[in-house]
């Protein structure tokens, strides 16, 4: 526990809150990017270099871009007249708070049981690679299949429908 952690946690949470609360969708998207970056930095703080950079590459480099593209393609940049929050926003907020309470409760309940290992485990990219094509090769294949399916699916879903003859 040190200052860096608190700083990063603050940035991440602030980014998340801003993403959820900001009226403007593009601002939300940019704010969520901050949250993504914060999480990536938290990963680095946890000595998970590879995952951290992968997080930046995937989330900031791809998902954030996808989100802004989607916003522009759905004309989401224009503010809606009815307001941005749904009618039942209060219930949603209460439920989210409830979930947080339950998770926090669970964490604090198990404070004595949580592991205490502090030694740093050096993980090299080679080890990750070997694990990926060794013990985890089946999940890797499945993820490959999933990504292929998702690519094709996304293209088909977002493709123009052929104009029907009238």
């Amino acid at each position: 526990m040190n200052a860096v952690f608190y700083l990063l946690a603050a940035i991440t949470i602030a980014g998340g809150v801003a993403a959820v609360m900001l009226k403007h969708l593009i601002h939300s998207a940019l704010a969520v990017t901050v949250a993504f970056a914060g999480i990536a930095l938290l990963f680095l703080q946890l000595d998970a270099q590879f995952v951290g950079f992968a997080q930046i590459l995937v989330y900031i480099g791809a998902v954030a871009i996808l989100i802004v593209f989607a916003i522009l393609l759905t004309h989401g940049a224009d503010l809606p007249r009815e307001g941005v929050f749904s009618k039942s926003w209060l219930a949603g907020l209460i439920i989210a708070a409830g979930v947080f309470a339950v998770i926090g409760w669970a964490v604090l309940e198990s404070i004595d049981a949580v592991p205490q290992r502090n030694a740093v485990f050096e993980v090299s990219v080679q080890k990750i690679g070997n694990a990926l094509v060794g013990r985890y090769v089946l999940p890797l294949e499945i993820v490959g299949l999933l990504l292929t399916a998702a690519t094709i699916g996304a293209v088909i879903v977002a493709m123009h429908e052929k104009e029907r003859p009238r």
Partner: protein
Amino acid sequence: MAATPFFANLDRIFILLRDWLVGFLPVAVRPAASVVLGVIAIVCVFPGLFALTTIFERKGLGRMQNRLGPNRVGPFGLFQPVADGIKALIKEDIVPLSANAAVHFLAPLTLVVAVFMEFAVLPMGRNMALVDMGSGLLFFFAMSASTELSVFMAGWSSRNKYSLLGAMRAIAQMISYEVVLVLSSVSVVMIAGSLSLPDIVNKQNHYTHGFPHWYIFTPWGFAAFVMFAIAATAETNRSPFDLPEGESELVAGYHTEYSGFKFALFFLGEYLAMFSVSGLGTTLFLGGWSAPFSFLTFIPSWFWFFSKVMLSIFVFIWMRGTLPRLRQDQLMNFAWKFVLPFTLLDLLVTALWRILGLGWQRWVFCTVILVAAYVLMGLDQERRRHIGPRRYRYAE
């Protein structure tokens, strides 16, 4: 040829300089101070190089187009960048009224910062990488992927249709070619077995009969390098892939609404991206800081690195002087129907190269497969080329 102490010291001169400077400080802050010094060096050297390159480019382009280029400021116009810099600094900073001021302000900053980060992992000489990360290559790509968002921020916040269109084009193009950029680098990773850039250079720093083991001198490496070069050109929005700022269509693309120092930052970011991607290409395929012949190893490693980078920059400029601009659909078709499949095939060929082990067979097989694929795919592209109405499916 054994390196004499003089040349060895020359090779390490920057490291020695740093250690000397750090030596004045208390022990506790020395590690931090040496990092700071490295950062300062990068932040100073590359913008300087940028200034040099602008004049170099303008003069060179002038030669190619049979004109003189700038020749008013200083001898042979050499102080032109200084004049330009001063002009950019003192110009009025105009922000459009309807622009989203905060985002408009942040866009060039994040761009330049992300691009500067890329230099952190490049080994610019023997033991001259600022940080030797295990996953340095991934870091590089993570940073270069972050620049896309800055481009979007610039384009969107300007509230200008040309800016937005330019940004969308740029992002579509960068995403398309980034895939190729990453995949063509992966083939190097497969052979080198490391994501660490200094490691990759060390793997190439061997000589047989005086010739280096650079990856460009293998069939897969050559193919990957060509694909990498194409993707790098597109990634940096350079001609012939400079549609995002095609001035005849879009005024100037996503930085239309920028002026003064912010514009200069974009300009700087663009050239820095060019340097960094050249540096990466040099590191991955051209042996980084290693000398081209074993009898030249006495020359300092940083000299080789920077000469190779400058050589790539010259190729960039040369292409700009030679090739006309592509159309958006051509660009996309080229990326997805030729470059990407070929890069994927090259990955397979790299795997084959690795499986076949030492021997003459792998040279024959890999070369034959790649050449055959290139010819067949080229013929296919040639056949599909037809003149007809344009279809814009990606930007509307």
